[in-house]
């Protein structure tokens, strides 16, 4: 085997109260895609940050082309040819695509910025995605959809012509179409002889891309494969057991009840002629390409950007909410897609985050220990049921991993016994094991009589969890399918093209 481009040898990294990495060894060769997988909190991102110099390891060595290096700033690793797409976005919304791509290494001529050359370079990099993207070098980033912003991130990393490119869950915000663009880019990189470290929770991406697979668990190497094994082998290594029932079983016939919420002729700036019934006991999945209007529909139902026209009713009572508070009061709740900015109070404790909504709907002067909807004890029990892992429940929630944070928001809503739950990208950045438990939770909520709405860019997920699938395109619901629909059928409806032939 050729010498690896980089090696991480015996890396150990501790944070106050947690050993995030424990004697981890990892490497990557030229022209290779090495997949790094593991549950939430396994230490994947931390390992990458050690490689790139965001963190200094407590023990162990970083070797590049066989020489030990000590990066203390991402800039140094970048200069050494390591480029990272971090899990958290790092774009400047008020600047253009070109300005973002050249952030920190602007080209200049005679001491003046060379705007024209940066523009050209940017367009050259964007060409790697083919011509199927909707933006160009001088588009302002804030005008882009989330998936497109992720593509800018990727373009930025690629444009550096680095030898090593690390992608930390790059497809988390991408739809299938955009994911395909990305896979093409990864193939191109491999063919150019670059090394790619690819972190993901999605098994089919590993099959599609990886040459090697390493599994992290609790900060240690759980398994390492020089080939791509079957998914259940990987999953077994990640969770320590096989996942038999990954997706929940379908709703039984007698479980589907009356419509809980009904929309007729719903219309606003982004949505047109929405007719929709969400039924008790049923999980309704929403599929569509980015910008199809799924999030907009969720925001309309939840009262953030309400319908301007049409009627919404819940058991024949008008339910056109003007604010989330009204929606929640009526029993419609949403789990936002962007947990950090829309879901969490990062500085508050896990408990306080869980209790937040229960308190919001109790008397303001009432005791925070036992509000009308839940007591601290109830909440602690709920946390336990959901298997939330935290040092203790009084730590700030920002110290928890993404999956555990998501569960805390689930616990928050459970306290209010909601009638309609809207999950937006419920498993973005969440590991397989936790995913399964969230799916199971959705089903049990439905069994409890709630209507569940799921919006996800992960098509297998939509197909796997839903009893009924609604496909959206250009702000309209264009198709309704039953459980058992195929990816090809859904994509055909979502794109308006017949892809069945092409998919074969």
């Amino acid at each position, binding site marked *: 085997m050729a010498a690896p481009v980089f090696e991480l040898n015996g890396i150990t990294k501790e944070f106050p109260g947690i050993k995030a990495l424990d004697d981890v060894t990892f490497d990557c060769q030229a022209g290779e895609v090495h997949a790094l997988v593991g549950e939430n909190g396994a230490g994947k991102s931390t390992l990458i940050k050690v490689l790139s110099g965001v963190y200094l390891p407590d023990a162990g060595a970083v070797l590049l082309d066989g020489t030990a290096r000590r990066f203390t700033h*991402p800039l140094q690793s970048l200069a050494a040819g390591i480029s990272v797409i971090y899990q*958290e976005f790092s774009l400047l919304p008020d600047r253009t695509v070109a*300005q973002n791509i050249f952030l920190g290494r602007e080209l200049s001529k005679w*001491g003046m*910025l060379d705007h024209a050359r940066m523009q050209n370079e940017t367009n050259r990099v964007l060409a790697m995605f083919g011509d199927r993207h909707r933006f160009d070098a001088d588009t302002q980033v804030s005008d882009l959809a989330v998936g497109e912003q992720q593509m800018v991130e990727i373009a930025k990393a690629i444009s550096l012509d680095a030898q090593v490119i690390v992608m930390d869950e790059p497809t988390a915000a991408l739809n299938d179409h955009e994911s395909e663009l990305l896979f093409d880019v990864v193939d191109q990189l491999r063919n150019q002889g670059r090394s790619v470290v690819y972190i993901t929770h999605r098994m089919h991406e590993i099959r599609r891309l990886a040459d090697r697979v390493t599994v992290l668990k609790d900060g240690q190497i759980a398994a390492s494969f020089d080939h791509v094994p079957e998914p259940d082998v990987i999953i077994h290594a990640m969770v320590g057991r096989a996942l038999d029932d990954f997706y929940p079983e379908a709703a039984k016939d007698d479980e589907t009840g009356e419509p809980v919420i009904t929309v007729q002729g719903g219309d606003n700036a982004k949505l047109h002629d929405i007719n929709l019934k969400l039924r008790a006991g049923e999980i309704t999945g929403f599929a569509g390409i980015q910008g199809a209007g799924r999030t907009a529909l969720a925001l309309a139902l939840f009262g953030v950007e309400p319908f301007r026209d049409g009627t919404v009713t819940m058991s024949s009572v008008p339910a056109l909410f003007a604010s989330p508070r009204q929606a929640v009061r009526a029993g419609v709740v949403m789990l936002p897609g962007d947990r950090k900015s829309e879901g969490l109070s990062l500085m508050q404790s896990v408990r306080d985050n869980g209790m937040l909504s229960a308190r919001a709907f109790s008397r303001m002067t009432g005791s925070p220990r036992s509000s009308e909807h839940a007591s601290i004890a109830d909440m602690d029990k709920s946390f336990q049921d959901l298997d939330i892992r935290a040092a203790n429940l009084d730590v700030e929630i920002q110290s928890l991993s993404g999956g555990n944070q998501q569960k805390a928001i689930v616990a928050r809503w459970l306290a209010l016994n909601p009638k309609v739950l809207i999950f937006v990208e419920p498993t973005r950045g969440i590991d397989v094991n936790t995913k399964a438990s969230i799916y199971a939770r959705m089903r049990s909520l439905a069994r409890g009589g709630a209507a569940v709405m799921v919006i996800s860019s992960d098509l297998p997920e939509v197909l796997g969890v839903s009893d009924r699938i609604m496909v959206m395109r250009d702000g309209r619901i264009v198709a309704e399918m039953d459980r058992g629909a195929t990816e090809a059928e859904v994509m055909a409806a979502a794109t308006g093209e017949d892809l069945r032939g092409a998919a074969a």
Partner: protein
Amino acid sequence: MNGRIARFAPVLLLLAAFAIYIGIALATDQSQYLTFDNLLGLLGRSIALGITAVGQTFAILIASIDLSVANLISVAAVLASYIMSGDPSMMLPAVVAVLLVGAVVGLVNGLIITQLEVNPLIATLGMALILQGLLSASFTNFAGEVPKEFQTFAYGEVGGVSVSLVFLVILTGAAWAFLKFTRMGSNIYSVGGNADAAKLAGVRTARVVILAHVICSLCASVAGLYLASRLRSGAPWIGRDGVYDLESIAVVVIGGTVLAGGRGGVWGTLVGVMIFSLIDSIFNIAGVDAFAKQILRGVIIVAAVAVYAARSKRIEA
């Protein structure tokens, strides 16, 4: 689309203020205020504010703020007139000393903010108190005097236009070019827009923050020199009495630079200054009494900022 409205909002506000000015001048039969000289004079009213605000724009662009400018202005003015003491040969040393003090104050502000990670509002407020205290402990009144030659800065004219006005326009132009065409200028926008992202991309954010504060403080020092020239001397209260801290922030924001950083520019700030001068003049020709003026000014600041803010969907702190 929204971006475009935001871009021109300061100009629209300026036109509105201008229309009111003309309207009132005509309505009260005071058309003598509408001559070209008078309109130039309008801008000339606010040179010190303009110079300070150009600097403040840099601080706000990096999502910081500088509340110490007013007191630094006093320090600069007092120091300048104290060192000059009427002696033309001391002009150069005095200017150098004042700029040096400005640079040091900016440096210290920047260091406190970046190295001690103190909230900029608090850091510069603390600096303001420290500067004012040190100055008042050393000087209690007008100190020294600037020589006649130095008064050219405030009172001289080139081609019928005052030197100071020309200076302000050149300063603004230079600041604009710096922001637009240099890497450092680009970094200022990046750090203001998303400091973490800039850091990850290898921008030395601390240096950018410090530089922005140094520029801000240098501008305030120059404003102090201007006031020393205009008032012939410097006193420990002139910066504070001119409320240059709050007014400079207000004009920057009215000029379209967002307090959260990363968006805006110095030409907008200059427009903001013109709006403020116009408002002052409107009050003068309409004969609004001093107390009512104050009420209106408070309302106008909030209303002008609301014009920008109401469009944004963000939930502000």
